[in-house]
């Protein structure tokens, strides 16, 4: 064990005496008059309930968070009175503009109300009664296998950092918890979809996983966030939208629509975090450009790998006949162009000006198209 309590309390006379006194009714009441702000909050809009935004008040609010947290390394809640020997829990992310985004409270509240449960919210029976044609089902099974690899990293991208983030950033940490929960749900839903369809899981993707590992293991939070939430998030959002658009069954359409909603929150956090980060640390712009110069090849690995690209073409074209594959290839080409344009636009709007011209992605796509 790495940490032992400072005493063997079973041998502690002081503790014995203290508890005796208190239990005999001699209370210390040392907590009775804290030096904290007295508030009595109510929901601004009763229909919406009591949100974290309603609690953004005075010394309790996140608006008053300083850029650098120096006074609290414990879990003592923001706004409570800090006293005595509070421990250092080992937080290493203590700067607001490393992690914060102005939309974290909204996204957290939204995630809670917009949750769904794969067991009961997807039409599993309808799916069983009207199975897809075999080639399409195999493609769906392959797609679900690939998307589970991605969801693992979208989940890991949030869970990996929580332990290191100062508890003062409560609403942000809470949002990350919601992202973990959302992506866990995707893992579950995709596994269920594949194993309900009759084809089982298919092949893991070496190229995708190499790219995923590179993104997940980024050294700093801001790199990891732009890599996982913005780059991987953009890929997943495009794929979920596309799969919902080409879905031939209502159950699949609903599955990917619901996943799309969750992924859009992840992208919204990623864009918001990037914007906040660059607004408060403009000197990081060049570092992040440089990071993406190197990391954007992961986007190619994620979408261009055989285990994603081929089933995507089959699903987009509606089958494996030559004409269907040509049509599918054409649709996927458009999807790629749109994906890269949207990803670049998100980077630009969040403050990475010049990303679309600096990025090699658009050129790569043009070469692919043979232009």
């Amino acid at each position, binding site marked *: 064990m790495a940490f032992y309590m400072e005493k063997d309390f079973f041998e502690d006379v002081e503790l014995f005496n203290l508890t005796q006194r208190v239990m005999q009714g001699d209370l210390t009441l040392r907590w009775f008059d804290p030096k904290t702000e007295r508030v009595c909050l109510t929901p601004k809009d009763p229909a919406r309930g009591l949100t974290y935004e309603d609690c953004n008040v005075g010394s309790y609010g996140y608006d008053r968070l300083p850029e650098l947290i120096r006074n609290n390394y414990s879990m003592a809640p923001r706004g409570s009175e800090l006293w005595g020997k509070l421990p250092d829990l080992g937080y290493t992310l203590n700067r607001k503009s490393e992690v914060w985004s102005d939309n974290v409270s909204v996204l957290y509240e939204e995630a809670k109300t917009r949750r769904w449960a794969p067991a009961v919210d997807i039409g599993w029976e309808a799916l069983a009664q009207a199975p897809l044609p075999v080639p399409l089902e195999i493609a769906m099974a392959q797609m679900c296998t690939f998307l589970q690899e991605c969801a693992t990293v979208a989940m890991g991208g949030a869970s990996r950092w929580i332990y290191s983030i100062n508890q003062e950033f409560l609403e942000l940490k809470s949002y990350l918890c919601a992202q973990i929960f959302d992506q866990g749900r995707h893992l579950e839903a995709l596994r269920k979809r594949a194993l309900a369809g009759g084809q089982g899981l298919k092949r893991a993707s070496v190229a995708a996983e190499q790219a995923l590992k590179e993104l997940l293991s980024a050294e700093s939070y801001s790199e990891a966030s732009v890599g996982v939430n913005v780059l991987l998030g953009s890929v997943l959002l495009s794929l979920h939208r596309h799969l919902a658009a080409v879905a031939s*069954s209502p159950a699949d359409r609903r599955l990917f629509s619901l996943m799309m*909603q969750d992924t*859009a929150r992840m992208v919204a956090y990623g864009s918001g975090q990037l914007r906040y980060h660059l607004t408060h640390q403009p000197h990081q712009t060049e570092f992040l450009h440089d990071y993406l110069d190197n990391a954007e090849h992961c986007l190619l690995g994620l979408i261009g790998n055989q285990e994603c690209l081929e089933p995507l073409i089959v699903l987009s074209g509606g089958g494996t006949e030559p004409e269907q594959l040509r049509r599918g290839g054409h649709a996927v080409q458009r999807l790629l162009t749109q994906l890269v344009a949207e990803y670049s636009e998100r980077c630009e709007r969040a403050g990475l000006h010049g990303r679309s011209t600096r990025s090699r992605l658009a050129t790569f796509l043009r070469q692919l198209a043979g232009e």
Partner: protein
Amino acid sequence: MSVAFPSLAFFQALQTLMRQEELRFRRLGFVDTTFGVEVLASHGAPWRCLLTFEVFECREVAEVASFDLTEIDFVLTGDLATWVETMQNIKQHGGADAAHSLNTLTHFGERMRVLYDDPDNRDKLFRFQESLQQFFDLAGRLDIDFPATTTTVQLSA
């Protein structure tokens, strides 16, 4: 009683139905977005309306002359023929079929387009997808008067 499409009365009717279906929409979650609906006519001015969703309901619908994309989240725009076909499809199936969902129609901007200024705001279309789809699906319960002729207008890319 029937309502004409497109018209303010049509969207007000959807708004009322959404309120009546509060439980179902509550289950789908908060929906906080303001967006425009634009119906392009082959001649004459487009018909435009602005929908404001808040918490679990459609709080406001208003016919407007123009949109300020920096003030709202996005605009769904399509020609009259596409809108009419979509509504007829919804009526026919009690909800949009796979080819007529908002997502499918707007996905590549072929049949409908999404206009926006800030991509973060545009992404609300995806964040609230199911609520918005089910809102439009409520049209399946309305008696709708469609315009006599609908010609397809080429969407400019």
